């Protein structure tokens, strides 16, 4: 590995960490699309900043662009408040318009500007190590690393200082307000940090990857845990893992690093989406199937309880009476037998004592809907865990 390669991976990882922190809160606050809007609408801010400073990494440019991000949020909220359109429409109207203004500004001044839309939108991480920061003539590393590094340090400090406030206001706005934290300050603070991170990172990785790095690790982590601290840590790990593995994918395919990192994030999300232990699609489908079987079991037990006639309790009759397919009735019967709830007597099914008790409790639960009555049943059955 050459030093440039190490530096690229370092920058990518730092960007991933810096994005994962605000991203987690955006996902939890249902504002993920705001990050998409910000990442597009900072374009005019960047262009104007660039006209003034002629330097993509100058703090003034970052400040101006972040300001545009906050203006976007304010505009979206204002339009939404007029009640003329819904929030999502407001987002969808504001950012393409601002982005268009940015594109036109670039196009009109194409001759004087060393900036094109592709670069802003897609970024090029491979060139980041060539733009060095010189302090008193000494090479102290790539500029992008310093920019995003300082942004990361600031957001970590803010995160630690305001963790409690952020947590409360994210999960319970009303409680936060009544405890005396202003939700508005926290909201705009978060928006400010998101904007600054987006601007700081876009130069290295492009606007789209910023969105991916904010949302995807947080969403993936959210499928695995419901603890905020764990979610933050998972998100950071996923981000860094994708950043480094994405770099090597790009290296072997000779393709865009930003694209590869996003692809790795996508694969990671896909894997977790499918296989997450409790919230993955497969687990959810399995649970839904179990629940269906258990509902059938309950129906079946109730049926047995309500009918004393032998005709109604004959095995062959069950199929036509409760109208189950063959496979299903077999699963249900097996489940009931395994739990010692029914017994067979010459093809006549009857409830055991345990089955009888269970049915009474289940009826009690259905009628009263009290959780305490079924505490002990939760062990065996998915149905009552809902």
């Amino acid at each position, binding site marked *: 590995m050459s030093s440039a390669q190490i530096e690229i991976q370092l920058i990518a990882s730092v960007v991933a960490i810096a994005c994962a922190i605000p991203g987690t809160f955006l996902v939890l606050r249902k504002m993920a699309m705001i990050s998409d809007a910000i990442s597009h609408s900072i374009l005019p801010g960047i262009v104007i900043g660039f006209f003034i400073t002629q330097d993509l990494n100058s703090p003034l440019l970052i400040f101006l662009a972040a300001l545009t991000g906050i203006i976007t949020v304010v505009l979206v909220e204002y339009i939404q408040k007029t009640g003329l359109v819904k929030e999502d429409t407001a987002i969808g109207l504001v950012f393409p318009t601002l982005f268009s203004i940015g594109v036109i500004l670039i196009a009109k001044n194409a001759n004087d500007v060393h900036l094109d839309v592709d670069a802003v939108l897609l970024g090029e991480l491979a060139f980041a190590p060539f733009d060095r920061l010189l302090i008193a003539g000494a090479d102290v590393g790539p500029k992008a690393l310093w920019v995003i590094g300082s942004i990361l340090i600031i957001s970590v400090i803010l995160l630690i200082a305001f963790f409690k406030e952020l947590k409360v206001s994210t999960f319970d706005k009303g409680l936060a307000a009544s405890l005396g934290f202003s939700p508005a300050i926290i909201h705009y603070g978060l928006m400010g940090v998101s904007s600054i991170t987006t601007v700081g990172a876009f130069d290295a990785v492009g606007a789209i990857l910023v969105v991916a790095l904010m949302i995807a690790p947080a969403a993936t982590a959210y499928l695995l845990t419901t603890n905020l601290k764990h979610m933050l840590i998972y998100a950071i790990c996923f981000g860094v893992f994708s950043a480094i593995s994405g770099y090597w994918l790009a290296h072997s395919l000779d393709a865009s690093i930003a694209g590869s990192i996003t*692809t790795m994030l996508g694969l990671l999300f896909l894997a977790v989406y499918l296989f997450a232990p409790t919230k993955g699609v497969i687990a959810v489908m399995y649970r839904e199937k179990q629940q269906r079987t258990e509902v059938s079991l309950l129906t079946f037990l109730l049926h047995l309880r309500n009918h004393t006639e032998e005709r109604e309790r004959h095995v062959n009759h069950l199929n036509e009476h409760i109208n189950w397919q063959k496979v299903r009735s077999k699963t249900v019967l097996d489940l009931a037998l395994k739990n010692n709830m029914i017994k067979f007597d010459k093809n006549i099914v009857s409830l055991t004592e345990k089955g009888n008790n269970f049915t009474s409790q289940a009826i009690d639960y259905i009628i009263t809907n009290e959780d305490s009555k079924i505490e002990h049943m939760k062990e065996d059955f998915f149905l009552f865990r809902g």
Partner: protein
Amino acid sequence: MDVTEYIKLVFTDYTLRTITLGTAILGAVCGMLGSFAVLRKQSLLGDAISHAALPGITIAFLITGAKDSNILLLGALLSGLVGTFWIRGIISKTHLKSDTALGLILSLFFGFGMLLLTFIQKQPNANQAGLDKYLFGQAATLVESDVWLMAIVTSICLFVLLLFWKEFKILLFDADYTKTLGFNTKFIDILITTFIVLAIVLGLQTVGVVLMSAMLLAPAAAARQWTNRLGTMVIIAALFGAFSGVFGTAISASQNNLSTGPVIVIVAGFFVLISFIFSPSRGLLFKQIRFIKNRRDLQLHKTLSFMYHIAETHEDITHPHTIKILNNFQGYTKGTLQKLADKHYVTLSDGNWSLTEEGFKTASNLYNQQNDNNE
């Protein structure tokens, strides 16, 4: 270049005619279908789908190796649909919310598309040049066959829209009721979503991935302000869309260095702004005017009722009082007093006012609901 000259040029110049026609048709179909997207609260779906179409374009190119725009659009359509249904899967199967699902699919698909695009660009295939026009769109690359394709798709959309109008409408406003009536809601839902995806894919070549969502939303959001009827809204949105296309093309053609896509979006945004401000029933301007008028009426009523309570204590209701006693009353200004005099509720004579019979009657009925003679 003046306007008549430009219009003449539109009819004679092949390129300009094609582009104008293409963007107009595109605007119309986007406005039509966008109305449904906006009303179904799926505004940002357009943004997600347009980004999700990119891998489809690149995969179609990788498979065929040719740059036939129809095949590329087919690929875009397929991957757009995959994206849409994955978004639904995420929302219905996990506890992730719709905004997260949209943002995820948008960025992940687009990133994957970028990976493939850069991979293709490194390949020794001369054909690949110009694939990236789908990113930002280039109306200038439209040719007559593209316009024909748009026209055909638009007429199919129109036909299906008219055929299933009742079903679309009822699903839009009351999905549960639709289900109880026995309609196959899933089918109608998939049908309308597919058409929205189709419209987005059509626009990719012209306005590009990033700005496509505005193309879908802006005409519909503008049209929403002028009417409360779905049919009218769809028509107005189509008109707004078509005009954005025509004007946008005209502006970008008359200036150097202006790409068509962003200009069309800004024109559409301008329509939205105008509609937000000047729409008669919902617009901000008239809302403010109504607000001010109501406040004035209220002040007038307050003054009148204050006078009534004073006059009540006298046997002769027209007994004059000095204007000074009104001074510490909040609703009173010279203007309101004059207005009351104009309505013949009070008579003024050198520093005194007195209620008239009519004024007394009105004031006593002021808070009486039966009196429908409101100011």
